[in-house]
């Protein structure tokens, strides 16, 4: 067995196979299910570790399987895919622990964890996709695997949210598919190559390439929640907290953003995309989304909804970084892929803890919660400050590089105001939450106290995941210059993309 050709497949299979087995377990085999979940997550972590080391040393890992003439399923590890795979793998492990604690004793757990594993497998698959065809396959699989998770509770509200999610994502998926087939007919298989491939096509194709770009970006923009394609995201909030966490930090939203990065850098090539005049449009869409999401977040009293609109806004920093020509902007966008993930998952874990422990769903119910649940609230605060861009949390690094990149690219005139306004808005919707949590007196009773305070403020499986991810968010900012940090890795990606 040759590890170079099998490793990418094994990375996908390490969550896929446990997931398939879990579907057929009876509801009562709690321990077996947990063991399978954690073993899968642990094995994946080790495999990804090997992969990161190998890619850093310019080793090539590729699994190739022919599905039809000219259509190969390719799983390939490069710097960008490894970044996303590592993020998914680490956060999957944490989220699995959280989900086990969160769903204890609720029905249909085999179904839930089965689809949960499929969801992660699809995410890892699309991260490792070596061409646009493979990407589309996993992109659609992700849609399918996520639907049952959003609909999981089966309430009319959950079903409605899931239906809207599906309508948006399948519609977007169809556009993506049409664009991909079109590109395939024009240019043959579209392998992801650093620097892109399409600049080699003759000039008479340029008009078609612009239309295809539009199709692809709209298709991806639905998952990335670019305004006005974001409508599904706030409604998908009805999902259980671990699902929301995964959806917002790793899986769905990030898949869209990652796809945009792939299309711009590794299919079109960022310089060629700029030549075709495609980056300005993308940049404007991203800027509008950043501002719009933040403004909507201001008025949400439901905590998860506020976080959802915050995601709409924050994920578009990635698209913004992509639209900024030049290595520094690229670094800012790509590093935010990781930073936003770690910070947002912390926020959702914390929100889930408030709801599960005390029945708190609204910002207005959060008065004094910092005293009752200090560790959760500290984690929440670290992540929220990071989102605003307060140093030394990870979010500051992203914004710094985005701003610097914009100056270098001569786009400071409109990017800087966007960054500043958005940071002010971030502060405006997060700081009042922190102020309530820490400095206001709690009311007479919590809305619905499910878990009484014992040794810890809530159960261990709920408490540790946000603490761990908040620590990661802090570390990613503090040690940004250390080897293998997200920032260093993003710099490596930028070097290879621009051939520096």
């Amino acid at each position, binding site marked *: 067995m040759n590890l170079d050709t099998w490793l990418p497949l094994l990375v996908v299979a390490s969550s896929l196979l446990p997931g398939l087995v879990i*579907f*057929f377990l*009876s*509801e*009562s085999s709690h321990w077996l299910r947990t063991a399978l979940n954690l073993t899968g997550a642990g094995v994946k972590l080790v495999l990804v570790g090997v992969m990161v080391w190998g890619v850093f040393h310019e080793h090539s890992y590729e699994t190739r*399987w*022919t*599905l*039809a*003439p*000219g*259509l190969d*399923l390719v799983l390939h590890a490069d710097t960008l895919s490894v970044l996303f795979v590592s993020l998914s793998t680490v956060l999957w492990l944490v989220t699995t622990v959280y989900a086990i604690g969160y769903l204890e004793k609720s*029905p*249909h757990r*085999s*179904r839930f964890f089965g689809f949960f594993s499929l969801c992660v497998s699809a995410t890892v698959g699309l991260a490792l996709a070596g061409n646009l065809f493979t990407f*589309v*396959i996993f992109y*659609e*699989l992700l*849609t*399918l695997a996520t*639907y*049952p998770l959003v*609909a*999981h*509770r*089966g*309430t009319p509200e*959950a*079903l409605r949210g*899931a*239906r809207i999610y*599906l309508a948006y994502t*399948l*519609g977007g*998926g*169809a556009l993506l*598919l*049409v664009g991909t*087939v*079109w590109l*395939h*007919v024009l240019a043959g298989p579209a392998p992801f190559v650093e620097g892109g491939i399409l600049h080699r096509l003759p000039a008479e194709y340029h008009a078609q390439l612009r239309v295809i770009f539009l199709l692809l970006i709209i298709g991806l923009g639905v998952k990335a929640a670019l305004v006005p394609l974001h409508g599904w995201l706030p409604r998908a909030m009805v999902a259980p907290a671990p699902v929301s966490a995964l959806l917002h930090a790793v899986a769905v939203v990030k898949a869209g953003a990652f796809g945009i990065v792939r299309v711009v850098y590794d299919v079109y090539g960022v310089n060629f995309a700029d030549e075709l005049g495609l980056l300005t449009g993308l940049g404007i869409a991203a800027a509008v989304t950043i501002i719009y999401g933040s403004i909507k977040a201001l008025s949400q009293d439901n905590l998860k909804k506020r976080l959802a609109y915050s995601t709409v806004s924050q994920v578009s920093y990635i698209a913004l970084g992509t639209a900024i020509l030049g290595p520094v902007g690229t670094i800012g966008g790509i590093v935010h892929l990781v930073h936003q993930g770690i910070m947002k998952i912390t926020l959702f874990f914390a929100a889930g803890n408030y709801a599960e422990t005390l029945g708190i769903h609204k910002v207005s119910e959060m008065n004094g919660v910092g005293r009752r649940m200090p560790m959760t609230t500290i984690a929440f605060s670290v992540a929220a400050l990071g989102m605003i861009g307060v140093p030394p949390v990870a979010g500051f690094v992203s914004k710094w590089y985005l701003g610097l990149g914009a100056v270098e690219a001569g786009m400071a005139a409109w990017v800087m105001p966007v960054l500043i306004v958005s940071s002010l808005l971030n502060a405006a919707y997060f700081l009042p939450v922190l102020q309530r949590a820490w400095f206001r007196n709690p009311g007479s009773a919590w809305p619905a106290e499910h878990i009484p305070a014992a040794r810890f403020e809530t159960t261990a499986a709920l408490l540790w995941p946000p603490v761990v991810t908040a620590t990661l968010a802090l570390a990613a900012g503090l040690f940004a210059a250390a080897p293998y940090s997200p920032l260093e890795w993003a710099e490596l990606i930028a070097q290879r993309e621009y051939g520096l």
Partner: protein
Amino acid sequence: MTDALIWLVAMPLAAALATLLLPRHASVVVIITGVVTTLAGGILLFAVGTQGALSYEIGGWTAGLGIALRADGLSALLLLMTALVMLAASIYASAYFSKAVERARFWPLWLLLWTSLNALLLSGDLFNLYVTLELLGLSAVVLASLGGKTAAVAAALRYLLVGLLGSMLFLAGVSLIYAGYGTLDIAALAHLIEPGPVTWTALALMTAGLLLKTALFPLHFWLPPAHASAPAPVSAVLSALVVKVAFYLVLRLWLDVFAAVVTGAAANLLGVLGAGAVLWGSWRALRAERLKLLAAYSTVAQLGYLFLFFPLLQALPSGPARDAAVGGLVILALTHGFAKAGLFMAIGVIQQRCGHDSIRDLDGTAQRLPATTFAIALAGVALIGLPPSGAFLGKWQLLAGSFATGQWLWILVTVAGSLLAAAYIFRVLGHAFGHQAYPQRPVTVAREEWPALVLTAMAMVGLGLAGAPVWRLLEGGL
């Protein structure tokens, strides 16, 4: 290797007689038949893949006088699919019909249908094709009427009349060909055929008969009631195989025997009718109130996609792009066969457990039968054409062919049809979520739930991930 050809016809025929004589052991006989024909189908596929098309003259009589059996890549693929679907449906039927009397009536006809399916796929001349088509139609009608209710009998009667009309049109075409060319052997005809009023009339008559049998819009009116009122294993086979072999004949005539005389306008007409089928069938499936009716209208729509390929194949010059499209067409047909058979079986389980198949009242059932619901989901995803199903590869080729030939209309039709399919499938799947009582184990009735799961998994993953040999097998012809 030619033995496999004979086994494929002789085995179900002998079994039909055996079940008449030994009704008590019928179920065992049928399952053995299924295993043997599946093996024979596998061997045949392997042989065709390595040696190319095979043929065998029964009794040593040469073509013209005797009966010749032939198999190329296309027929071998369909034969293997038939064997697998029939095997699974037989296991399912042995549990579905709980009374011995019901089974005693059912098995001989079932095996006769099986024989005629295989014989049709192996026939190499137009007269034998007519005979097997007639035999197939008659056994299908009787099986469809086994539901016993008035609605089933009325639908079956209409099915009978339509089938007879179709066969008559086909026979009329065949006689014209015989008068014009003096032979009915399709391999010989492919070389002789030349444009002219006789040829065109014959092709038009035969095609009209076959379109009626394959229920292409707007000739589909008989299909939904017939397929929706038949017993579940019969519906499965009617939708997955019976209409499919009529389509196989259209394909055989248009791309093989009459390829030289087919015009672009005629191919476009088939494409337009196919587009109508996709849109109308999907729309009616979306509006259907019963699961079986939904599945039946979905068959109308899915057959429509297959006809969208005709204008593409007409416009594409022979070469890799056209070969890719042919493979896409075949894999779409195969995927639909597996998925639709599994879907009807799963619906049958639901219908038996709660006595109805009304979509609106599905809540509790869908949650009490996780494995069956999962089978419906797998089948549904394959029908929509999402990856990793075989249909995804098929629709990819459909889109690629449309782009390559600049026929934009089919792209819109394909996308619209797929989104409608997603709407009608997820309308059903939404009922799987909720907090109804749920079982400890996902599979509750093994003999009825596993066959559907296996077939739908085949459509969803098997053909999608291991479908590349389909293209290789078709390299020789079409």
